[in-house]
């Protein structure tokens, strides 16, 4: 749907682009002792030549001065790779998280200037509000005479257990698009803004929209919004206005993405964007852009895709644990469905999960990235010198569908490997896994995931080398 928007085409590649320059620090990564599951791989690697373990991840977070130093005088973020790498290493400091996410989640292209971003920001503002006004108007028109709540145009989030004197928040259900602050801008710019507004109106008017779909989405959204992160400061309390914003964004997204619509769990994803960006418009566009890359995970036909990948990956990396899960009848990996769908949101405290989410979303460490190619090249060269044509077993080649988050899953499972192996049946495994929430050390899991990832790269090199021979 939104792919048709003029500015979307600039934005898209920022989300999908992979890292593109070399980085020698990967050489240092090594399998730590005690990773029994990787025993098979380790046997194939001569130990004495390996460097001491040193992790790329778990460095201090990207701070404001570093972020600002990445911008050129016109405000372009020239080295996208450096940003992604910095985010991967340690996440982002809260003071600069908003700015970083705006690039990372496609609100602005990395190479846009600060001035261009001002125009885009106005464009985003008008387009979002026009889209929102469109479904609100339709809902009103289709059930005239009813209250806004009955029409589904707005909702109140009053907690009936709380004092009813709490001031009720009434949503700005106004169909008019809120004006931008134009006090300090020239007439020329004002005209430009008017033009953008008309453009946005035309754009929103052209989007196909289906009342039945919207009503269905509204029903589900209204069930989920009041139970979204109510423990978090940002959404706490009766009549919290942020809940109405959450609702507006979810309905707007669902209304104009009829293929995926609204699925439970999207509220959990959006709440992060809203907390970090603290802007309805920015959160909508970042959320939409993120959702467009992962929407199949939320559709019936794609729901099992990542679970199958975890399954395959675990089978390759840890046959013993895999077989045990199979014997316990939970080899379908359903117990990690929530981890992947919500980006580990309920497995770690909010702040930590946020960091893990940005680290995964940095897409710095992926099997398709050139950094990984480099590690593989080095491994090939070393291998050639070392082993020179010796016969070894041919294994599976590297599967670029194995994204870093899948390695995080495997790391989380291997972290409790013995406990899992002690479980007698699937329910005990479910119980063990659900007991993990809030009890894991994120830094430890990340290091482990990284180690497994790098070992997988090396293993695939060794396997591929054999094929070339």
């Amino acid at each position: 749907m939104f792919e048709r928007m003029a500015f979307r085409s600039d934005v898209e590649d920022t989300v999908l682009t992979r890292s593109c320059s070399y980085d020698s620090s990967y050489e240092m990564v090594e399998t730590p002792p005690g990773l029994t599951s990787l025993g098979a791989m380790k046997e194939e690697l001569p130990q004495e030549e390996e460097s001491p373990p040193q992790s790329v991840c778990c460095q201090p977070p990207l701070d404001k001065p570093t972020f600002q130093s990445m911008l050129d005088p016109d405000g372009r973020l020239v080295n996208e790779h450096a940003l992604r790498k910095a985010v991967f290493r340690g996440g982002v400091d809260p003071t600069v998280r908003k700015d970083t996410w705006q690039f990372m989640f496609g609100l602005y292209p990395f190479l846009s200037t600060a001035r261009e971003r001002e125009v885009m920001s106005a464009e985003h503002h008008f387009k979002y509000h026009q889209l929102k006004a469109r479904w609100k108007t339709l809902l009103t028109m289709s059930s005239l005479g009813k209250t806004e709540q009955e029409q589904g145009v707005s909702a109140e989030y009053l907690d009936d257990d709380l004092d009813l004197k709490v001031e009720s928040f009434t949503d700005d259900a106004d169909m008019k698009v809120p004006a931008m602050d134009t006090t300090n801008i020239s007439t020329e710019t004002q005209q430009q803004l008017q033009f953008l507004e008309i453009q946005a109106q035309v754009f929103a008017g052209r989007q196909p929209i289906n009342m039945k779909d919207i009503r269905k989405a509204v029903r589900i959204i209204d069930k989920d919004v009041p139970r979204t992160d109510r423990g978090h400061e940002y959404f706490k309390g009766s009549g919290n206005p942020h809940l109405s914003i959450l609702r507006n964004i979810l309905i707007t997204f669902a209304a104009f993405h009829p293929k995926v619509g609204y699925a439970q769990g999207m509220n959990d994803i959006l709440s992060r964007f809203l907390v970090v960006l603290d802007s309805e418009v920015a959160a909508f566009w970042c959320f939409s852009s993120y959702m467009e890359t992962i929407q199949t995970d939320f559709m019936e036909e794609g729901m099992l895709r990542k679970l199958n990948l975890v399954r395959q990956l675990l089978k390759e990396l840890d046959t013993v644990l895999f077989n045990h899960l199979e014997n316990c009848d939970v080899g379908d990996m359903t117990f990690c469905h929530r981890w992947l769908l919500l980006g580990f949101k309920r497995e770690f405290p909010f702040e930590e999960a946020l960091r893990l989410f940005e680290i995964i979303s940095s897409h710095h460490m992926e099997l398709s990235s050139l950094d990984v190619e480099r590690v593989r090249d080095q491994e090939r060269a070393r291998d050639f010198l070392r082993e020179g044509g010796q016969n070894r077993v041919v294994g599976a080649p590297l599967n670029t569908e194995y994204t870093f988050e899948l390695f995080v899953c495997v790391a989380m499972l291997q972290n409790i490997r013995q406990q899992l192996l002690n479980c007698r049946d699937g329910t005990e495994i479910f119980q063990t896994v659900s007991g993990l929430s809030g009890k894991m050390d994120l830094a430890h899991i990340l290091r482990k995931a990284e180690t497994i990832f790098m070992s997988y790269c090396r293993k695939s090199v060794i396997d591929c080398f054999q094929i070339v021979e």
Partner: protein
Amino acid sequence: MAAGPYNYSYIFKYIIIGDMGVGKSCLLHQFTEKKFMADCPHTIGVEFGTRIIEVSGQKIKLQIWDTAGQERFRAVTRSYYRGAAGALMVYDITRRSTYNHLSSWLTDARNLTNPNTVIFLIGNKCDLEAQRDVTYEEAKQFADENGLLFLEASAKTGENVEEAFLDTARKIYQNIQDGSLDLNAAESGVQHKPSSPRGTQLSNDQPTNKEGCAC
């Protein structure tokens, strides 16, 4: 979770199904923790709870699988119907649409479980009498026509929550006693666990880690 003597004689597997927002997780939480969880986040895929109860002097461990209500999650939840001895099918008495969808949930339950699976219909949120949208009589008739056990309950106040879970177990136990439920059938949803530590266990209860570690 070391292997050892079981402090219960049976394991019954339950599933909880029904539309989103009807209070499936809250019923489970009320039953296992005796607490009402307000603002309980929605279930993604399947979640799991357990409690040991007593029926006719026998200790029974209930393994309860709680499922996501939104239709598209059925891709994930469907495999958990298999081998359920009890199915709790929940609707919200204040939302007619959740009641209207019962026939589709029932079809799923019938198709994906075995003929002996005890299906219990729960009309949740009966504390919200003022907002009632489905009468007791209407639902009772639906239950009778389809051979379901039925109660209205409230996860919030706890009313009838124990009863629904326990009555289901009693019915399953009765089916075992009168022989209509074959314990040896592959997907009966019931496992017999002799309490004695030296008692024979079903083969699939053997701690599988032994062979795993030997590799």
